[in-house]
Every structure is written in C-alpha cells, then in structure tokens.
C-alpha cells in the first residue's frame, strides 16, 4: 500500500484532474429541461468523477462525512412517522385541509414508500453497501448540471456534499432532479445506462429504481407540517402537498 499526502480534498481532486471552480463559463449555459444528450453527458461526467475519486481511505480526521445508509434510513423513519400521523389524524379527526388530504392520499403513498424500501432490502442492499465500502466510493452529493460539468476536464463548484456513500445515490439524486423538473426522458433506460457505465449489477439498477420511486416530496412535505418547519398556513401546506404529489410523479416499480 502506498501513502500519499494531500493538502485537503480539493487538492486531492486537483491531482485527479478535477477542478473546484467558483463559477462556470457563461457560454456553457444550459437550457431546461435538459435534452437527452445533455442527460447522458451528465451521467457520463458523474461516472468519470466516481472513477477518478474512489479508493481513498482518508485518515481518521472527520475529513469527509460518511453518509452510507443514511438515505434509506431517513426514508424508513419518514414512513414510521407518517404512519403515526395518519393514526392521529384518524383518531382526532382531520383538523384542516392538509390533514384531510393526508388521510385521503397518505395510505397510497405510504404503500408506495414501503414497497420501495422492501424492494431494496429484497434485492441485495447489504451487498451494495459492502461493495461501496470496499472500494471507498465517493459521492458528489450535488450532481446536477448547476454544480458539476465537464469540458475538457471535470469542473465542480461545491464539494460540500461530497461524502463516502454508494455511487448509486448520485444517480438517485440526479434522476430525482430530472423528475422534479419534468424532464421528458426514459428514466429506466437512463438508469440502465448509468449502471452500464459504472459496471454496476442489476441489484444496483433495482436500488436506483426503487429509490427514485420512493415518494420523497410527499414525505418531506408531511415532515415539514409535523415539525412546523415552514411558516406556511394550513392551506399553504395543503397546496404544497398537492405540488409534492405532482413532483413525485409515478412510481417506476
């Protein structure tokens, strides 16, 4: 095993041909929604970042967060909390339109969320984590074109969300961004292409499909209501929940 010294993560990225930049060239601006070619180019950039960065076992300095398993755990917690909310709303009767909407649509979204998590556990989740740990995979965290782009070299604006994690999570983040923006794209085909580029197994494909099928926006909105995280009134929460359902789209499972 060889040992090399770097000033910091940015220095390490530089040594791998990845530049941390303050902004991108204005000429490189993109048009939303992204074209199919742009989506594929971005998937390829994400793949290159992974290939160039994986394999670093950093010194025990808390240099970079280890986010392995966090996303799935957060999804499970949100399922549990929503179940309890629904029981409470049922027991006490809905207090407003938001609660009425949750009572009406919640069970359906809960079922979709549970199905996604079960699918992940039934399809080699632990094996994927083990692979990721062995290879010391590093995720970009913020994968959209406004943060990372490739010209002759890969340029990235913020490395704040870079962390140790399964590289599948970057695909989940990117596909979710596309879905939220209503990009017209064959997502299954995109996921397969990503896994081919990365040399990942069918379990990885299943993981990504399941994670992007999890109704993240619906769950997030319910969480915001539960803890009063936003200064919205009940009507605003109801509106936001409807918008969240729209963003979550159809399940890919």
């Amino acid at each position, binding site marked *: *095993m*060889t*040992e*090399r*010294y*770097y*000033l*910091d*993560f940015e220095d*390490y990225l530089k040594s791998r041909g990845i530049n941390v930049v303050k902004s991108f060239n204005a000429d490189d601006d993109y048009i939303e929604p992204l074209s199919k070619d742009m989506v594929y180019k971005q998937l390829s950039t994400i793949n290159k970042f992974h290939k160039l960065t994986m*394999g*670093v*076992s*950093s*010194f*025990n*300095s*808390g*240099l970079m967060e*280890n*986010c*392995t*398993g*966090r996303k*799935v*755990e957060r999804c*499970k*917690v949100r399922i*549990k*909390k929503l179940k*309890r909310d629904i029981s409470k709303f049922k027991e006490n009767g809905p207090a407003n339109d938001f609660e009425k909407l949750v009572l009406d649509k919640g069970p359906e979204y809960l079922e979709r969320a549970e199905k996604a998590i079960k699918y992940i556990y039934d399809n080699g989740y*632990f094996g994927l*984590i*083990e692979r990721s*740990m062995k290879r*010391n995979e590093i995720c970009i965290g913020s994968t959209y074109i406004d943060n990372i782009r490739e010209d002759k070299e890969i340029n990235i604006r913020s490395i704040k969300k870079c962390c*140790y994690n399964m590289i599948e999570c970057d695909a989940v983040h990117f596909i979710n961004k596309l879905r939220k923006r209503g990009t017209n794209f064959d997502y299954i085909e995109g996921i397969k292409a990503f896994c081919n580029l990365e040399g990942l197994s069918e379990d990885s494909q299943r993981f990504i499909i399941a994670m992007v099928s999890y109704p993240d926006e619906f769950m997030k909105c319910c969480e915001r209501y539960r*803890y009063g995280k936003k200064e919205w009134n009940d009507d605003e929460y109801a509106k936001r929940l409807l918008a969240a359902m729209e963003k979550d789209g159809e399940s890919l499972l």
Partner: protein
Amino acid sequence: MVKVFFSRRVVFEINDIVRYREKKYLSRYDLYVDLFKQFGLKVTDLVPLRNVYLLFTDKGQKILKKVEYSKENLQFIYEAVEYIRRSFDRVISFNKTLSGEIYAIFNGELYCVMDVAQGREAEFSNPIDVSIAVKSIAEMHKASEGYRCNYTEKCIAGRAIDNFKRRLEELSFFKKLALLHEYKSSFDEVFLTYVDSYIKEIEESIKFISSTPYLKLCSEEDKKVICHHDLANHNILILDDKAFFIDFDFAMVDLRVHDLCNFINKAVKNFAFDLDKANSIVEQYSAINPLDKRELEVLKAFLSFPEDFYNISKDYYARRKEWEEETFLDRLLRKLEYKEDREEFLSKFFIQW
C-alpha cells in the same frame, strides 16, 4: 489501493468550523516540549482532533490526551485495556514515559499518550458498520471475562437499583429547582412539561429491575465484563471488517448487558428507535456471546430507564457541560422528538424478547 493522509491544514479547518465546542477544552492543554520529552518523543507538529491532540513525532503519529480524572481511574483503564488485549488487540494502547509511567504530570495536570488507531468512525445508518461493531463488542466482552477489578468504585455490578433510585431523587430535585426559578428559561418550561412522565418512567424502571434476577446475575462471574460504557459511533473505528475501540474514559465493570443497552440506545435513537436494528444487535451479539433469559430481562429493565432525558437534565441543572443555553434546549427538544418512538419501541421489544 492508495492510502491517503490529509495534512494538518484540513484538520485545523475542521476543528475551526465543526468542532468549535471543543475549543475551550483544547485551549487548556499545556503543549510544551518538556512534556513530550517525558514520553521520549520529538514532536514536529501537532493538530487538534476532537478533544485530544494528534502529534506528529519521531516515533510516528500519537494521541496526546489531557486526563480529567484521577490517577487511579487512569490506572484502572490501563489495566482493563491490557487485560482485554491478551485476546483482543483492537483497543487503545498507552505509551509509557521514560520513567515507565502511563502518565506524565505537567503543571499539575495529568497527560497520557496513546498510539493512533487507524480506521474510520462507524456510521450507525450503515447496517454493515452496526453489524461489525456489535460482533466486535461481543468479542471484546469475551476477552474481558474473568477480570478481577481492584477498584471498588469502578465495579458497579449490583448497584443499578440504587443508581436508578439516586437518579430519581436527582430528577425530582431538578424539578424543584426549575419550579423555584422565578424567571423560567425555555429549557425549564419544556423540562417541567415532561419531567413528571419521566419520573414515572424511572419509578417503573425501578420496579422492573427489582423484579428481575439482577442481583443474582451480578453474583455470577461469567456475566460480568469490562464495559466500555460510551459506545458512540466516534468511539468505534472500522477498518477492514473489524472494529477498534477508543476512549475508555467511562469504562467500568458491570453486566455485559449494560454495554449492550448502551450500544442499542445509541444505534437506534436517531432512526426512530428501529426495532429491527435492535433485534439484529441482540441476535448478532448472542451468536458470539449467548445471552440467557435472565440477562435479556435485565437488558429490558436497563433499556426502560430514560437515560437521555435524565442526562440532558443533569447536564443542564448540574452545569456538567459548558454549552450555550440554546444548545441545551436544542438537545432536549431533539430527545423529546423521539419520545413516542421510544415508547413504541420498548413495548414491542419487551414482547419480542
């Protein structure tokens, strides 16, 4: 594979931004060449790391720790880890001074130096890390069986009932204190809203543990081990499918289910008290170190004690921590956020086991 070390600059940045809470503590260290000389070390550089310093020396990287407890306590820790090391070597290793001591006294303060442990901090959201950690805990416990503790205050087996009672009195005292405050802080207000339900919980815990064969178990040598007692993720380092344990400051001799309770609480509390995770911890531990029915009963009684609420209340009212008011409140609210999850978890766990 290339193993990468990052330089001190990064560690400084991290400590400046993230670890600000330890600044006050770190500033109390006396970092003199004469101190390092006592350990026979030539230090070329040093950087803060949590509440210790990482030293770059002529004998490799070392950890310098300012000891905040007695020499006797440190001696106990040394003897305990050395006992464990006979058959389990993934524990901290002390460096002796030139005069053969495990500590040096400098300006009236106690310092010790340890080897640097390799590995990354365990992440409890990662089921593989949890699995590696629990298996290693079981192995470490096995390695510590038969240890004869000569430090009475460190052998707490048999004292849990009294301990629960003392804590109940303390919580009732904190309640009186909060009620006395003419101008109540936000912490006081929230604390007073919930304290009665937790007092009741502790009363139930006392009844529960008294109904178990706890005292009988404490008289059986093979049930007692050296407990780490602070199995937080940052005290467990993972390297190649194995866990390494650091920071034995709170170590003591007690029933092995004491540590198991400590680990379960820490591993599940941030995940809405995930029952499956707790079940898997008990199963994996038992596969290496089988637990009998009586131990499981005691484990349940230990788990029923509202450790988190008691601790944050004591931190606040006994001024155990030098935190800002809002930090105390934030932590209290976070603990209360999972109150329902914990109750649901306990009721299911009790039926399951």
